[in-house]
């Protein structure tokens, strides 16, 4: 029997970027907040310090900062007729499991998603007609606009120390920035990073072909910085150990060095680590939630934490899992096309070309997580006519190095043996003489890509695992072919000694190797309770004192990294909750 604890105003499940932002904002608004984090407390001083943090085996290969799949994982399949089997170890994506969450080990790429995403269905229908959208593509408008979100993007960018160059200030195009971006009220808080050689070469090649390269905006502080809350950042050291590592210089934006310490200094805030939330509790008529149950994973002891409000701020997959386990909202049924919880799971796609140059030194070990020059000409550029190519969405193309460490990254030309003297010679020769051009592509929602509860497999708490059903569809294949052709055209124009060309992905999605920790959807925001789980304030349509925050609210996935809108929506939701507590109830009438 769970021990019942004293009632608090708010319980937050998961303490990464979203939980941290909401914790800080709400304790400062006078609410008593308890945060429950499944991971333990790690700090820069004791855990992310040099030299121990510089361990590729421990952090990249053995996943020291990530979810422990022995305790809880998902089952995986490509389509509803297949039998799902457990993802027995991490591979394709890497959810974090410490205070600070995945924000500790991300790379920092921070984008502003635009109305091309938020109004996806209406914009494509208006331009290309309803029939342009495949019947099984379940894209829908998000119920929010870029204009509404702009001040919150700005707030997140200044909190997280984004280095970049504006391309559009209040409608005026700015040289050196991304000409396709939506208007922003002011510049990035920090100038761009010092570019690396491959980015400069890509910049020139892309520009010569008529594209519009710009430095990728990233939460790697290009110089020392104090954010508006007084949190201090060191300057990025271009150490080459960024994604999957904590930053010893405090140069990478993370909740564990910004919003979380501020919340922790506030007497209204209580953090309980090693606390695994198993269920959100509802009242007898199911109109409100009353708190959560959780297990202390150090002792096995179970607790009930009653609360006036529940905020789900765990990793995107875990938020959806908790909704399904708690029976809140109607589970999505792909056959009947009914229900909303689990709907519109999306991922990302991409292609990569590898270029080899006899006379260059690229130093793949030297760079920030966001050392990258990018083009958006085929992404948020609505001037790019998708009509002749027959796909929706887009892709960004870039070149840089991010954590290219030697267990995982040893480029050799095609045809090189895998071992022996010839392998050694080629590995020695080419390690520093190769560069990559990558395209990252959007994934549009599809009726057969979704989550539900697995009928067979269970986690360490005796609960059903989440089941993920996902595969790429024809839209992604078309987009992939277009992006591969474009990447290869740029690569050829650079006259490398040899190239391993990009090729469009057509085989099924696989759970190995690593691809991207950009899992979206499952509890999507929207305009009404028939098509979405949450309203535009990320408030549950079913239980008005439950808010669900994270990339799980995205109705589809763009080609961009998700943290920009994830952070902006957390601030947007914090403002909404401050209004909500004065007048509790549904903030949008169904």
């Amino acid at each position, binding site marked *: 029997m769970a021990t019942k604890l004293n009632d608090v105003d708010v319980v937050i499940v998961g303490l990464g970027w979203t939980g941290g932002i909401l914790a800080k904002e709400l304790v400062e608004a006078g609410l008593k907040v308890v945060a429950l984090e499944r991971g333990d407390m790690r700090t820069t001083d004791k855990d992310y310090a*040099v*030299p*121990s943090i*510089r*361990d*590729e*085996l421990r952090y990249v*290969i053995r*996943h020291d900062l990530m979810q*422990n*799949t*022995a305790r809880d*994982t998902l089952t*995986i*399949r*490509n389509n509803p007729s*297949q*039998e*799902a*089997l*457990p*993802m*027995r*170890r991490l*591979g394709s994506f890497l959810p974090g499991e410490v205070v600070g969450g995945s924000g500790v080990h991300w790379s920092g790429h921070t984008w502003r998603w635009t109305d091309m995403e938020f109004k996806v269905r209406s914009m494509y229908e208006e331009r290309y007609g309803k029939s342009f959208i495949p019947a099984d593509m379940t894209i829908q408008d998000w119920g929010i606009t870029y204009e509404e979100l702009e001040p919150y993007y700005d707030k997140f960018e200044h909190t997280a120390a984004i280095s970049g160059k504006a391309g559009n200030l209040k409608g005026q195009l700015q040289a050196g920035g991304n000409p396709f971006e939506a208007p922003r009220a002011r510049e990035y808080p920090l100038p761009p990073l*010092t570019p*690396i*050689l491959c980015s400069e070469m890509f910049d020139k090649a892309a520009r010569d072909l008529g594209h519009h390269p710009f430095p990728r905006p990233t939460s790697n502080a290009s110089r020392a910085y104090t954010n508006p809350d007084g949190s201090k950042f060191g*300057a990025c*050291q*271009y*150490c*080459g150990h960024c994604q999957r590592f904590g930053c*010893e210089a405090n140069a990478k934006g993370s909740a564990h060095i910004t919003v979380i310490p501020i919340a922790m200094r506030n007497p209204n805030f209580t953090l309980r680590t090693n606390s695994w939330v198993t269920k959100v509790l509802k009242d007898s008529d199911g109109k409100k939630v009353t708190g959560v149950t959780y297990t202390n994973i150090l002792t096995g002891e179970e607790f009930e934490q009653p609360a006036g409000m529940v905020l789900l701020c765990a990793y995107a997959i875990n938020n959806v899992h908790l909704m399904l386990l708690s029976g809140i909202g109607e589970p999505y049924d792909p056959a009947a096309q009914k229900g909303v919880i689990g709907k519109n799971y999306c991922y990302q796609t991409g292609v990569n070309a590898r270029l080899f140059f006899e006379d260059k*030194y690229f*130093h793949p*070990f*030297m*760079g920030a997580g966001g050392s990258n020059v990018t083009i958006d000409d085929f992404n948020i550029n609505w001037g790019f006519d998708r009509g002749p190519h027959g796909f929706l969405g887009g892709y960004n193309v870039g070149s840089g190095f991010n954590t290219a*460490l*030697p*267990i995982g990254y*040893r480029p050799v030309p095609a045809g090189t043996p*895998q*071992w*022996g*003297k010839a392998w*050694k*010679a080629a*590995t*020695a020769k080419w*390690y520093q003489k190769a560069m990559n051009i990558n395209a990252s592509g959007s994934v549009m929602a599809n009726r057969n890509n979704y989550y539900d509860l697995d009928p*067979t*497999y*269970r986690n360490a708490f005796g609960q059903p695992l989440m089941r993920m059903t996902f595969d790429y569809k024809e839209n992604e294949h078309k987009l992939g072919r277009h992006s591969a052709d474009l990447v290869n055209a740029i690569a050829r124009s650079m006259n490398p000694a040899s190239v391993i060309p990009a090729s469009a992905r057509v085989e*099924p*999605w*696989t*759970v*190995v190797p690593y691809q991207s920790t950009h899992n979206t959807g499952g509890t999507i925001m929207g305009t009404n309770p028939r098509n979405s789980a949450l309203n535009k304030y990320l408030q549950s349509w079913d239980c008005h004192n439950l808010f669900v925050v994270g990339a799980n609210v995205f109705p589809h996935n763009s080609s961009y990294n998700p943290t920009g809108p994830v952070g902006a929506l957390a601030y947007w939701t914090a403002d909404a909750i401050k209004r909500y507590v004065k007048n509790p109830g549904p903030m949008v009438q169904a």
Partner: protein
Amino acid sequence: MTEKGFGRREFLKGAVVGGAAAATATPAIVPQEAQAQQPAPAAPPPATYAFLNLEEAAFVEALVDHMVPTDDLSPKGTDIGINIYIDRTLAGAWGNGDRLYMQGPWKKGAPSQGYQLPLTPAQFYRAGITATNAHCRKTYSKRFDQLTEAQRQEVLVALSGGRITFDGGLPAREFWTMVYQTVMEGMFADPIHGGNRNKAGWRLIGFPGAIAVHRENIEKFKNKPFPNDPVSIADMS
């Protein structure tokens, strides 16, 4: 390092021809000059194993020396401790299934569903070595470590190309993928984990290691060679 005159390798050789008693112990002859050298600077410590048995150790030593042979670019696999890394990682948390979801039911699944065996990595490694040696015995009447270089090459080419099927259904290609990955880890992980001795793997490619700061280097060394003098965690501790 068999100064005592009866090393593991000799034991294993002896075991094949009919028991330890039949082994011809060959005391290593150590030249006087070499004995006088104080201290021996780069002499690898004797290989001692926490997980691998004699036959497995012989397999791993033969494998890593075949995959990473001595030449001007690096010493051979056992001289840079890849065998020691593999033994330690199999004996440790990863080898014993740390973070591995180990609940049944167990189904083969599609390739896209990833690893589905009811084995920890150490158990899989052990079973895979046994199965590879069984293949070698069937094909060449010898264990892998007793084969010629050319025969070892044949086995690895077939294993990596998915052209060997293990009796009993153990997936040979997945075994190879795991073995290959551990060899690369033993060559390129920080020496703190037992391999990459003297940072030989890093020196091979010019990876500078655990170096903390490149802020100044990013302009200074743009398109220029960076000094090949890697730094390990131990060097910085």
